């Protein structure tokens, strides 16, 4: 299922958390790069919260002079944005052609097994999010995966499994 990105206008008011709004506001306002756009504001919120809450949409729209539709358009276009709080850990496995040729599919299989998942997404216990990446950019160390943005190269299925086990232990 793709994430539900339908704006629920009118419903958000009750659910609004003042603290969350404060964090969104400060993430949007304290961007350090000079050019502020819809995209830069959404990225700043994602960096701060790990996801784009509904409350953020209107705030970004008013801050950057865009319409709510435009903000949803941008947020739903780039697949790095998610709309629910992230799991505790982020696991990414590369499925680019270089990695594919040297065993990425076996690594993906091992990671799915270790996480008890059948596909990309969050584990039910909220410990990890699994994402397949089109290229993690370390092709000379293929196959590559990353746990919480720490890259692991020349990975074997066994090393992938023990990396996940160690992550769970932390």
């Amino acid at each position: 299922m793709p994430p539900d990105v339908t704006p629920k206008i009118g419903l958000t008011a009750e659910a609004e958390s003042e603290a969350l709004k404060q964090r969104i506001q400060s993430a949007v306002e304290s961007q350090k790069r000079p050019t502020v756009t819809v995209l830069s504001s959404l990225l700043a919120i994602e960096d701060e919260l790990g996801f784009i809450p509904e409350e953020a949409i209107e705030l970004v729209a008013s801050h950057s002079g865009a319409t709510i539709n435009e903000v949803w358009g941008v947020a739903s276009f780039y697949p790095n944005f998610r709309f629910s709080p992230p799991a505790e850990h982020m696991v990414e496995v590369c499925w680019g052609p270089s990695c594919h040729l040297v065993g990425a599919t076996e690594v993906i299989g091992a990671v799915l097994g270790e996480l008890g998942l059948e596909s990309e997404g969050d584990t039910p216990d909220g410990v990890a999010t699994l994402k397949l990446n089109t290229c993690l950019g370390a092709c000379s160390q293929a196959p590559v995966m990353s746990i919480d943005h720490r890259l692991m190269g020349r990975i074997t299925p066994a090393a992938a499994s023990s990396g996940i086990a160690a992550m769970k232990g932390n």
Partner: protein
Amino acid sequence: MATHAALKATANERWKELTEGQRPWIRIGTAICGHAAGAFDTLAAIESKLKSSGIDATVDEVGCLGICFAEPLVDVTLPGGPRLFFSNVGVDDVDAIVDGYVKSGNIPTEGVMGYLAEEGQVVSPDAINGVPNLNDIPQIGRQKRVALRNAGTTAPADVYQYLARDGYAGLNRALIEMKPEDVIEEMKSSGLRGRGGAAFPTGVKWSFMSRGENPKYILCNCEEGDPGAFNDKAILESDPYTTIEGITIAGYATGSSNGIIFIRHGHDGPIDRAEAAVKQAYEAGLLGKNILGTDFSFDIEISLTGESYVAGEETALMEAVEGHRSMPRARPPFPAAFGVWGRPSTINNVKTLSYAPSILENGAEWFSDIGVNKSTGTAIICLSGNITYPGLYEVPMGLTIGEVINEIGGGVPDGRKLKLLQTGGPLGGVLSDQSADVHLDFDEMREAGAILGSGGIIVADERTCAVDLTRVLVAFCQYESCGKCFPCRLGTTNLLEIVERICAHEDRPGDVELMKTVGKTMQMGSLCGHGQLGFNPIESAIKHFDSDFRTHMEERRCPTGSCRRPGYAPVNTRSFAQVPIGEPVAPVEPAPVSLAPGLAGK
């Protein structure tokens, strides 16, 4: 405002202290290749070991020397000594290096990869205990490093280390001795062609820029979503100043006021180092108002995009800089007249801009003497896949692919045979094992049916089924279609469905013809290269590996047994691609209908 000479004097003093001073200088590669090999763990171990041993040393994180297979690579310079390289240094190897070499100065016999002499340094074979000179191994010796000349040698964000290695000599010459139009002429006569894929002459592109009033923009494209290519990010995280100086030179030549470095969010190495470098450049008076004491002023900022391959297309890039969805615009108007925020803009790739400082410093002729024919300068090759020595090799244009694969890359490992090469990014196309004599030359590669493009070369051995690899490439094209032009959006989906059918022996009569029709429609009906070239991976695979497709379609078996059933469909993506992690696709009874001979033919 400091002049270049004044900055250079300070830089030389600091460099002398590093290379000839009394403290050991330890450099460790922490670019993305080092990172993935565990360099940050090694770095932490080195720092803690130095501390516990009470050794006062300078430790610098550096970029990529190109020999990624040797990462984590630790480079130790003791007072008066050469650079001594230790390869594949894990946490457990750190004690031996510090106790065995840094403390005692005795050159160990094990774990040492080789040495490099500092400029002007003479190293006698006796003093080095028989350790080989790294210039004698082809992975270093056959490189000709221009854009990557400092990568792996200087601390990326230290402007004085860059200046000490003749950094900003090119910009200084341009600002002091040349008019903007002279700079453009110099670029034209260097023969430099764009390294982003289209290979358009850079000087000519710069000359298109409107001469009207500012703001005008130089956009430096480091989106680089190509699987198999990491050279733009590697330059930016190994030596951001060469890019920054190149952007500034482009700004002067085109009379622009602003530069924007465009990188994908999440690639923290290049982002952080570029950001730190920009900050230091401002502090040193190399950006901002009155650069190097002249009346030229120029600003640079970093702009991030979300995940989108198409954002690397020049008009889609401008949309993303403006904060919109990265979808291409129709041309005309062209960016040189109507670019980002409607202002005149010039878009160049990181590699292209990173050559400019050396061209201005050493002259156009120096650059055009490297390379062959209309492909001057160097090619920056990312070598990966089934290859003995994967790495990032900057080599002169005109080397043959065979020299790159076999001499530098060490050939296909484990005695297996080469089967195919995938070049120039996923839209580039594949070459057969008969391509060893093709030269690294934009035009010759194009004639051979592939592109040099971004410089990625992915090597596949005989275990690879061309249908299986094509599926991965088409899945990428489908996933990354931005969706603006429906021939691309629907066409890539349709192509993927058909290739997956062929993989699973479930293809239908006429599927190959259907793919060709769809491919042609995409080519004619898409605004940007993504749709226009989206059929390339299939077309070139059918051209060179007709028999793999025929084995699947006629004999109903996978020629190498490597095609597997999809295990599941990813949900968190735009893609319909199914990751093939299931059971191997079993052979089935051959189809009763035989296909027309020669799928590649009409």
